[in-house]
Structure formats: structure tokens, C-alpha cells
């Protein structure tokens, strides 16, 4: 239980917004192209425009801003790193500051701003997708989008099923990890103290049982799936039917408009 709540899994937040009701496929495509637009926006105005679009998206999703900000957390280090690299290595433009071997140029600052803003926008649009789309819809959408590739032996159905089963088992495995850790702690194991070598060794009593159990689960799951008539994607029907609607048409139009505007505003 303690592990479970500390990790925000499948952060989907159910709401009744326009974005929630769109078909997952159109949302996936929209985000895919929007990310391209983010990288195409190389002028200040173009950039302000895509940023404005993101903000409108967030407002429309009716999701509290705190969830979006939390989604940025994992990117914090990447942003910091790129900012530092840009500032200290870019030697273009006016020299603003120098001390011994450290030099900061104007272009470095500008680039640092641009790059970090891009990463933030990118993370925001991606998390807007996962926040408004349930994992099931997401896998269904991906499966459907990739299914034309089946002709070229691309395992769209298998990958989607793998994804869905992984999502299903994440809470189970976390609970199990918690239980095994507690069982080993009851035998005097300690996962939080000692040298690094000691700590790495300390993981073995946790990892081995987890693997053994996971293999057992996989075997039993395979039996259960077979018993329920599973034999691959061939001839299979889907309970959840995806349907494009008026909303998706609107989303498509919006996307084209954004594309035109970004291209016009580009430097």
C-alpha cells in the first residue's frame, strides 16, 4: 500500500471535458503533430502561439494545474542539464559575463530559454494526453493506429496486449514488492543502510523472489488466457469500439489551423 500511493501510475484523471471525449486516436495524432509544431516554432511569436495553444488545451481539459505541474517533475533534471550546457558552452552573441574560464554569451541565455521552454511544452502536451485518456483507450488507440502496419508483420495487437497487461499488473507487482521487502526486513534485511555494495547486494533477496513470482504469474496467466480461447489477434473482436465523431473533425480542423499559423509565424 505504501509503495502504491507514492507512485502516480496511469495518472488518468476522469473528467467530462471536450478533450476527454475525443477519440484516443485523434488525440494521439494531434499530440504527435503538435510536438512537431513545437520544434518548428523558431520565432518568438510562433513560440508564444504554441504556448498559448497549450494553455487553452489545459483549460479545456478541466484538469487542475497541479496535476500538469507534477507531470513536469521527471523532466526537471533534463531541463536543468540543458540549461547549464547551453549557458556555459554557447559562445555566440555578445559576451555578457566572464570570470576566469567561464563565459556567458547572449545566445547561450536565449537558447537555454528556448530549449527549456520547448521541453516544458513537450512534457505538458504529452501529460495532457495521458491525463485525459485512460490507459485502456490509449492502448486501443495505439493498436488501431498501428494496425495497418500488420501487413508488414508489425505486431500491433500483441504490443497493445502487452501494454495493457503490464498496466494491469503494475499495482499487483508493487504490492508484491512491498510484501517481499517486509518479509526480508523481518529476517533482518535492511534496504536503506550500509555502503553501496552492501545495498546492491541487499536488493538480491528482493529481486530473486520477485522474478520467481513473476515467472509463475506469467505461466499461470498464459494458461488462463489459453483456457479463455486466446489465440492471437486473428479473428478477434473488440469490446471497446473506437468511433470518430464531430469532436475529432473539429480537432483535425484546429490542427490544420495551428499548422498554418505556426508556418506563417516562423522566422
Amino acid at each position, binding site marked *: 500500500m505504501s509503495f502504491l500511493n507514492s507512485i502516480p501510475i496511469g495518472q488518468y484523471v476522469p473528467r467530462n471535458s471536450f478533450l476527454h471525449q475525443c477519440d484516443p486516436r485523434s488525440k494521439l495524432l494531434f499530440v504527435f503533430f503538435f510536438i512537431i509544431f513545437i520544434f518548428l516554432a523558431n520565432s518568438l511569436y510562433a513560440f508564444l502561439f504554441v504556448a498559448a495553444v497549450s494553455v487553452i488545451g489545459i483549460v479545456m481539459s478541466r484538469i487542475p494545474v497541479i496535476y500538469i505541474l507534477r507531470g513536469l517533475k521527471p523532466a526537471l533534471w533534463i531541463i536543468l542539464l540543458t540549461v547549464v550546457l547551453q549557458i556555459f558552452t554557447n559562445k555566440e552573441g555578445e559576451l555578457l559575463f566572464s570570470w576566469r574560464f567561464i563565459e556567458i554569451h547572449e545566445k547561450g541565455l536565449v537558447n537555454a530559454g528556448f530549449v527549456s521552454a520547448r521541453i516544458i511544452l513537450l512534457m505538458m502536451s504529452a501529460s495532457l494526453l495521458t491525463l485525459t485518456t485512460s490507459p*485502456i483507450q490509449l492502448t486501443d488507440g495505439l493498436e488501431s493506429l498501428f494496425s495497418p502496419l500488420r501487413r508488414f508483420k508489425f505486431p500491433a495487437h500483441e504490443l497493445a496486449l502487452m501494454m495493457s497487461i503490464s498496466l494491469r499488473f503494475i499495482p499487483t507487482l508493487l504490492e508484491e514488492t512491498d510484501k517481499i521487502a517486509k518479509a526480508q526486513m523481518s529476517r533482518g534485511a535492511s534496504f536503506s543502510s550500509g555502503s553501496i555494495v552492501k545495498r546492491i547486494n541487499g536488493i538480491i533477496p528482493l529481486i530473486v523472489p520477485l522474478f520467481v513470482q513473476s515467472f509463475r504469474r506469467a505461466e499461470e496467466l498464459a494458461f488462463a488466457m489459453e483456457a479463455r480461447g486466446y489465440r492471437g489477434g486473428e479473428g478477434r473482436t473488440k469490446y471497446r469500439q473506437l468511433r470518430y465523431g464531430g469532436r475529432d473533425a473539429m480537432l483535425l480542423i484546429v490542427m490544420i489551423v495551428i499548422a498554418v499559423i505556426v508556418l506563417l509565424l516562423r522566422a
Partner: protein
Amino acid sequence: MVVVSKAIIRLADVSFSYEGAEERALQGVSFTVEKGEFLSIIGHNGSGKSTLAKLLNGLLLPSEGKIEVNGIPTADDAHIWEVRKVVGMVFQNPDNQFVAPTVEDDIAFGMENIGVPPVDMEARIQDALEQVNMTGFRTAEPNRLSGGQKQRVAIAGALAIQPAVLVLDEATAMLDPRGRKEVLEVVQRMNREAGMTVIQITHYLEETLDSDRIIVMDGGRLVGEGTPESVYQQVDWLRRLGLDVPFACDLQYRLQQKGFRFSTLKMTGEGVLDSLWTSD
């Protein structure tokens, strides 16, 4: 006299050994299961009963002998999916048979596999959930359910395919008494009201008392079969096989050794009291 055969599953001299194992897990097992029957299979761990369960719908194939489901041999590759439509199965671990992220998707899984048209699924999911008393949990995620609830979802998933036979492979072994009761009540009602053939493999004797027939397994062989009354009469023999007997049967057996006489074996404590009171 014309005998109309109502057999739905037929095992003829079935043996099975796992790859690389020296001993056979099953040895020359023969029996038939009649339509609408409630059959319990008991035996200690390693007696071959779970192997037997997996043979009934062709998850394992007999090394020797033959198993027929509705007249179709399970070894017939071309028709194995027909067999699995007839025989639904529920396994021991509630977690390891829950495939999808929500209850409704999990129930749909089996129907998707056999190509049920999507328009029909809605109603069949609803119907299956009603049969197992889980209508309020349609969109629930598995980690929010108790073990007994998960097992009832597993039963619903099997029911949605509309099988004729339900095999429960120690489906109650990991449940608490409350969960066991929930599952047993559902299966017994399916058997009584819908005429579902039930084959349950279990350690819990109280779950076998209302069976039409009990089969006793030991060392991969079928060593006994009969009504609960006839099987549980053989107290010493069952103990030697590492099995228990229900409290009432044990008590009657002990009383008999003290010189008491019982005309028939009673399966409940109340029955024993009736006998004690009428015999004086």
C-alpha cells in the same frame, strides 16, 4: 432398454506425464461426466487433480488414452477451440487470471477471443455480472477487489462464453471463508438453476457435501468415487490418503466404534443429532 447417454466429458484410460518427469502425473484415469452433474474431485497435493483439470479443456493433452468433450477429442487440433467454448475454467490464483485493467474488459476478454460481435457483448457482460452478484463492480479495477470478488469476476468471464461445463481448479484455495462461501453459492446456483455442469477440485470438504458425486485421486490414479455419503463413510481409508472427513462423518465413525448404530451416514451435525434422538 435404451440408454440415452447424457455424458458431456468422457475420459478413457488417460495417462499423462510432464516433460522430463520420471513419474506419471496421471495413470489410467477413466470416468464420464454427465450433463448437469455437480462433481467434486478431492486428493492431497500432488495427487494429480490439477493436472486432471488442465486436461479437461485441452490445456494439456493426454500422453495416452483419450478425452472427449461433447464427442470432440481434446487432442483434435482443428477443434480445440470448440472444446474451450464448452468447458470454462477458473484457476486458483485470483490475480493471475485477471487479464484486463477493469472488470468489464476482463469479462469481455473471452468473448473477444471467440469473436462475439461487439454489439452483443454489452448485454452478455451485464448478464454474467448479475449471475455472480457483481453488477455494482462493472468498471472496478482488480486491485480494488477482494479475492472472492475477483474469483466471481473470473466465473463471470467464463459464463460470458456460455459454456456447458465449469471447471474450478482449486478456485477457493486462496480465499478467506467469506470469499469461499460467495464463490460456492454462485456455482451451486448455476448448477441448480441453469443446469450448468460443475467440476470442482477442492481441499475444502464442506464444499463437496452437496455434490452429486465425489472422485478421490491419489498418486495420479482414480482410487474412489461415489456419492458424498459413500465416500465419507470410509474414514480410515481417507485418512490414509492424507484427506480429512467432514466433522459429522468423523463423529459418526467414532460413535460407531463405541457401539452406536447409524442406519445412514449423515453429512451434518443436525443429522447426527436426529439419529441420536430417534435411536433411543
